[in-house]
Each structure stands twice: as structure tokens, then as C-alpha cells.
């Protein structure tokens, strides 16, 4: 039984603002299922008593002090902007 349905792929594509043809959706659904099946091999391991983790490293509490440092010059901050006006990024009106 496939782990992911076509409808889920379509839904996630929509959330990510991606457009695919039907053929692409079919192929992506297959690929994602292959990946999940491969990863699913891990389920064969007995993980009783193993703490769930979000990181491979045993590292916690990386902090910085509350100190102000240099920011980018505004021209550099805006250097990738397709459009700018004064110091602001300009985007199509959103409301």
C-alpha cells in the first residue's frame, strides 16, 4: 500500500506554490513513496527505550549574549531585490 497518495502530493505542491503536470505528479508520487519505503527500513529496528531526538549531535544550549553588532549596509541588504524604492523592498500589493 502506497504511503503517499496523489492528492497529498498535489496538496503539498499547492502549499509550496509549485505547479506540476499530471505526469510529474504521478512520477513524484512514485518517487516519494520509494523514498519513504527506503526510510521505512528503520522501522525494523527495535527503538524501545530510545529517546526521540531532533538532532544527531548531543549538543544543547548554544547561546549568544544580548549584544548589538554590525548590520548590513542598506544597499547590500537590498542587492538581491528585484525592485526597490528608497530603502524598501517593493513587492506587488498584497491587500
Amino acid at each position, binding site marked *: 500500500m502506497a504511503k503517499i497518495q496523489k492528492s497529498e502530493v498535489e496538496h503539498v505542491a499547492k502549499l509550496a506554490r509549485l505547479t506540476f503536470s499530471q505526469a510529474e505528479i504521478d512520477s513524484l508520487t512514485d518517487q516519494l513513496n520509494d523514498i519513504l519505503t527506503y526510510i521505512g527500513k528503520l522501522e525494523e529496528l527495535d527503538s524501545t527505550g530510545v529517546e526521540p531526538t531532533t538532532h544527531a549531535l548531543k549538543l544543547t544550549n548554544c547561546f*549568544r549574549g*544580548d549584544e548589538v553588532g554590525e548590520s548590513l549596509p542598506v544597499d547590500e*541588504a537590498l542587492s538581491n531585490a528585484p525592485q526597490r524604492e528608497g530603502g524598501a523592498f517593493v513587492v506587488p500589493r498584497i491587500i
Partner: protein
Amino acid sequence: MDYEAVIGLEVHVQLKTRSKIFCSCSTRFGAPPNTHTCPICIGMPGVLPVLNKKVVEYAMKMALATNCEIASVSQFARKHYFYPDLPKGYQISQYELPLAENGWIDVEVDGQTRRIGITRIHMEEDAGKLIHDEHRPLSFVDLNRTGTPLIEIVSEPDIRRPEEASEYLKKIRQLVRYLGISDGNMEEGSLRCDANISLRPLGRQGYGVKSELKNMNSFRHVQKALEYEIRRQTALLLDGGQVVQETRLWDAAKGVTHSMRGKEEAHDYRYFPDPDLVPVEIERVWIEKVRQEMPELPGAKRERFVKEYGLPPYDADVLTSSIHVADYFEECVRLFHRPKTVSNWIMVELLKLLHQDNQEIDTCPVPPSSLAALLKLVEDGTISAKMGKKVLEESYKTGMEPQQIVQEQGLSQLSDEAELKSMVARVIEDFPEEVAKYRSGKKKVFGFLVGQVMRMTRGKANPKKVNELLQKALD
């Protein structure tokens, strides 16, 4: 049918750190657009955020102040959505493992105390600011605010009335200001509130369909928006209709809420743990250290003011409403040891002056030492209480010391007995008719005669002394 409102609030509090939550850009407000940005807060690929320790400690303070349990391990998560004020395409927030959970605060409405549960408090980053062009179809993006630290405080759906919601918010503001972790200003956006509200038949368990209200930027607007929403949902339900789950914006000018009609799919944020940020581990020792640094909170302070200074609960309540007023009072009492007198002058005179100017006590031009000096002048009879009020106003206006005002304007009260006696004698001589009236039993004339002495001294005579001397001279 009677309905009952079920209200839960989500409050965002902007923390008063110097630098942002994950980078060293300044959080200062009002800088030119995009001058406080760097590759981290602007969302460049390949950069690594590092957590500002002060953010964690500020959040811990609020958690302790609201009786929450602080998690021994918490984790940041990415919340995905697309909007131009969010350069990374996701907001770093907390989801499954928030910093703190299961707290409460008590709020009082009409003399009744209700305990409002707090589901969770978590840390997250703020988004940027958008300005929409009025004429052209353009929006301007300023990312200075992006990455400013926030805590989100989520309440249980325990609130039943709009007034309670407003009191709850005021309590949150009072706490963040006491703790010194935020300005807590709704009008300026350092305190923001969204409300979830649904109705259910009175006495019934379970929840109806809720709407989420946004865009309320004052306590009054939160209350008004909720009142409106209760009327709207009640009418809908009584009509046999149904409430639609949606986000509604409060329109303060029209006094209504209207649907945002979002095209977005129902919230699907695809949260997952942020691989760039390692878990935050908090041990007891750290919690205790933070607890030590916390100031006395409003409840404890109010109780102490009643016990230590013998103040009526009402006075203690007013004086502890803000930590600055409380500090002002205590500094004043340290210099002038009559707590109730100090309390009266602060509550009645000083707060009135500040209120007229829309000023807070921490910027008051009359420092506690000056008020204490003024009260000494009144106590030792140098000036009357009435004159004291005028001197306070003058000192408030000019920033001058009370002693200096009294001296320069010659306001000292005239208490010299010999001098006052001669004036009383002159008044008795000048007004024989009135004196005769008084002696024949028309005691009301006494006030007139006192008034004449006061007039001769242009109000400076010590009224108590004048009364005494006049009485003696007439009887």
C-alpha cells in the same frame, strides 16, 4: 435561548532586548527601513541562527510570573507560510516542545476573581513590516523588525466575558512591565492580541464553532470587538444559521468585524523541528537563578503595602498598579515617614497631574525627594495644604524645588502670633457691625471675619492660628 461566550486569547509580547533573537542586529524602533538587517534575519541560505540567552531568561521570568511549569527541554520549530514580511518562508517558533505550559493568572471583574488558565508560553521571532502604497498596486517591505524576539502567551478558553478579556490583558501588561521584559504598549504594537471566540448554549459543555479576531490595538478595542462578535454570533445562531470558522478583522472606525476571506488553505504550517537550533535545556539551578532576579510581583507588593505601611487595600491597589508608582511611593516614604499622607498626595494630586498630560510617573518632573520635601513644608506649617497643592503644580510645571518656589514667591505661611494678633485686632476695629452681629449670636459671621484676615495676608496666614486668635479676641 441564552448563549455563553467561550473566549481564549493569544497574546504576543515584544521583548525588550537590545539585539534580535537569532542575530546581533539592533531591535531599536524607528530606524530607516532595512538598516537593521543581516544575512541571518534577512533569510540568506547557509546562515546559522544562534539564540539570544536573554530571550530565554525573559521568557522564563514571564513563565514564573504566570505560574507555568518550565520545560526541562524545549525546541524551536519552523512554521511555514508565504508572506512578503517573512523572508525565509518560515517563522522560527516553538511547537511541540514550548518553553512553558500549564500556568494561570487571576483576574478581577466587578469584585469577583476568576482564574484564567495559560496553556503555554513559547518564544518566536517577529516578522517584518509592510506598508501599502495608497495609489499604486505596491507594498513596501521593511525587515528591521524581522527577528525581534517575541513570546506568545496562549490562554485556555476560560474567559467568558469581554471585560474579563480586557482585565486579563491588563494583567499581562502589568506583569511584563513589572518584569521589565517589554514596554507592553498595545497602541505601539509591543503587545498584540488575537482572540478566539465561540458561543454555546448556557450550561452546555463542549465548544461551538469559533472565529478568530485580529487587528485590535487597544484594550478597549479588544473588548468592543468581542462584544460585537457575541452579538453577531448570537443573531446568527438564533436565526438558525451557523458560525463559519474564519479569521475576522476588527474595523475600529465602523465598530464591526468583517471576514478576511483568506484564499489560503486552512492553516497548514507544516511544522518541523528547526535543524539549525539545538534544544534548550533548563535545569532547576537556572530557574532558581532567574527567580532570584525577579522583582516583587504586584500581588505580593500589594499585600506588603497593606501590612508594612498600614495602607487601605484600595490605596495599595492603586500604588502597585505600576512598578514605577510603587517605587516612587516607597522612595517618598523613606524620606517622609507618613505613608497614608504620601499615598493621598500621590493618588489624588500627582497622578491627576500626570493623567492630564498623559505622562507616566517615571518621567515625572517632580522627583520623590521633592514631593517629600513639599510634604515636610506642609507638616511643619510653613505652608498650608491648600498652598501645597499650588506649589506641587508649580513644581510639576517648572521642575523647580518646592522650597525654592515657596521662598521666591513668598508663600510661607504667616504663623507669627504677634503679627497675626495685630491683624485680628485691626479686623475687629474695621468691622464693628459684623463683630456686634457675631456677639449677639449670629455665629455665621465668624467665617467672614476669618476671610478678612486671610485677605490682608493674601492667603498666607495660618488659618488654624487665625481661627484661634479671632475666637479668643471675640469671646
